């Protein structure tokens, strides 16, 4: 029983970091093993922002193996070296936590596949997100803990999706936490509530096509599945509609890109979703109380029906 939430402001920016924190915190009873944010911030769009980790959070409740902190520095050094070799210039560097880093990179490419494969060839290194607007921040704990740890409450942007996780089919660690980056697509992220029952069949097929999986979390499949569909030329909405038959199981998921936000619900409508839609704001979550954290006044909301796919633009 995980909780998902998302919102998109149309025609304006807002404090999406704080808003999403409120929405996810309202859903913390659905799971607080880990919480993740995919924030689409206001940027000049010149540089890539790469969020990556060089190790795991091995705090209380974690299922990760403890490592000597010195290996984090060694991994970071190799990342820096590879970036230099690929001609990517680090414009700004932040190290929020020993295992978690944020780089602003001046790098001119349209295909991030080769770039990502090289960086992630370093054992223990995972790119959490890569994009000119997207930043994925995820860690163990509830929404407020993660927000405070990474100072997300001041992030201003147009849209965001997030996830409060109760770990069921994979470990309590950052690599299994949502959102998942739509590797290797710039600015694509996914959150999911549910279980996929044809995970391994799809995974094997996608791996044969060159896609990568970093965890054994079934939800990661959605990000990779959508990314592959887009790679084959489908639009976001087309890819999501195909997923209704391509993915088996019960699911409600959100996908966000640089300028859009979408939702899809499986054909049995087994997982909850409440949606509020107005001319300037769309807010949705597993429960209405998530929406109420940003819209406390009386509003009209509804549950999307089975097999429904919707996409909104900023």
């Amino acid at each position, binding site marked *: 029983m995980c909780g998902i939430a998302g919102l998109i402001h149309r025609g304006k920016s807002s404090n999406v970091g704080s808003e999403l924190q409120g929405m996810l915190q309202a859903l913390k009873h659905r799971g607080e093993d880990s919480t993740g944010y995919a924030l689409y911030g206001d940027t000049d769009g010149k540089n890539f922002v790469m969020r990556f980790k060089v190790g795991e959070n091995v705090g209380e409740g974690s299922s990760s193996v403890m490592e000597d902190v010195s290996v984090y520095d060694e991994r970071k050094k190799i990342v820096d070296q590879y970036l230099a070799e690929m001609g990517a210039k680090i414009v700004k560097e932040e190290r929020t936590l020993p295992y978690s880093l944020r780089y602003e990179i001046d790098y001119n490419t349209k295909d991030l596949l080769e770039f990502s494969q090289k960086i992630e060839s370093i054992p223990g290194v995972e790119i959490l997100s890569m994009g000119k607007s997207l930043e994925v921040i995820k860690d163990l704990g509830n929404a407020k803990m993660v927000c405070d740890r990474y100072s997300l409450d001041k992030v201003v942007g147009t849209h965001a999706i997030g996830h409060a996780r109760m770990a069921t089919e994979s470990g309590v660690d950052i690599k299994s936490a949502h959102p998942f980056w739509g590797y290797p697509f710039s600015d694509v992220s996914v959150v999911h509530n549910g279980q996929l029952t044809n995970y391994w069949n799809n995974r094997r097929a996608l791996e044969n096509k060159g896609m990568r999986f970093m965890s054994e979390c079934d939800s990661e499949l959605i990000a990779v599945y959508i990314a592959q569909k887009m790679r084959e030329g489908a639009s976001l909405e087309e890819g999501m509609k195909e997923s209704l038959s391509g993915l088996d199981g019960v699911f409600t998921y959100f996908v966000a890109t640089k300028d859009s936000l979408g939702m899809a619900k499986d*054909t049995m*409508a087994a997982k909850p979703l409440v949606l509020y839609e107005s001319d300037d704001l769309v807010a949705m979550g597993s*429960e209405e*109380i998530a929406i109420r954290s940003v819209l406390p006044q*009386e509003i009209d909301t*509804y*549950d999307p*029906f*089975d097999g429904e796919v919707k996409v909104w633009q900023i």
Partner: protein
Amino acid sequence: MANLKTSEKKSKSQSMGMHTEVLTGRTQQKFFNPDEAENFYYFGTYDVDFNKRTDLDVKDMTAPEANKEIDNLMSQGYGTIVIKNPQGKHSLGVGILNKLNLIFEGSLGYFGMGSCDGPIVRINGRVGWSCAENLMAGKVVIEKNAGSCFGAAIRGGDLICKGSVGARTGIDMKGGSIIVGGDAGAFTGFMMQRGRIIVLGDVGINLGDSMYDGTIFVGGKIGSYGSDAVDAELTKSDQDWLKRKLKVAEIGEKFDVSKMKKIVAGKKLWNYDNLEPTEKKGAI
């Protein structure tokens, strides 16, 4: 396993299509005997005065605190309670076992009005999943939309949603009526055992899947029929009942009920032996 026999004698309710199962033999159902009234005590109930009215602002209360305060007000005889600022909170108004006029000025979250027996409730907003689950008697009216599992396992009473409802409406219901002014999602009437569902709009896929008994009336399009759900003839008696019910429900009074579809159980699933593979039967 109980040896259930069927009787040819039909009651009025059966002739109206409410249910067709006729069982004889022992029953665990207990009927109220007026001669034993003084020995009868329904725990957790109060005598309330409908003219005694009060407001309750639950904005800063948790659901247990709000429910406890509603109970406290009923114990003081308040028969009409207006709840302000419910703000989508879960589990509000649960377990009310006496008559009461309860009005929510806003929306409820999950499990609102669960396990109630008798209150008349109006919700001027939306409700989340599993509204009025296990309702035994009374009337619950929702002015806007409702989430999935609307009226799950209700045994009696009227549950009315003027907007649209989610998936699995009336799942496992055992009596009462569910009336929907808008559309309904997939698996409406899933495994229902008795009672009636009326949907004026469209319904999703697998309507009445594995329904054991009961009746579903649909005014709009049907996504698909579920396993063992079949069409039945809409009788004059059905139409009269529908008209009366829609009027009482303050919903679709002018709706042309003669064009509604009536769906009942095909009862192919009743005899589970039929589902066993022939080979298995042979082996036995």
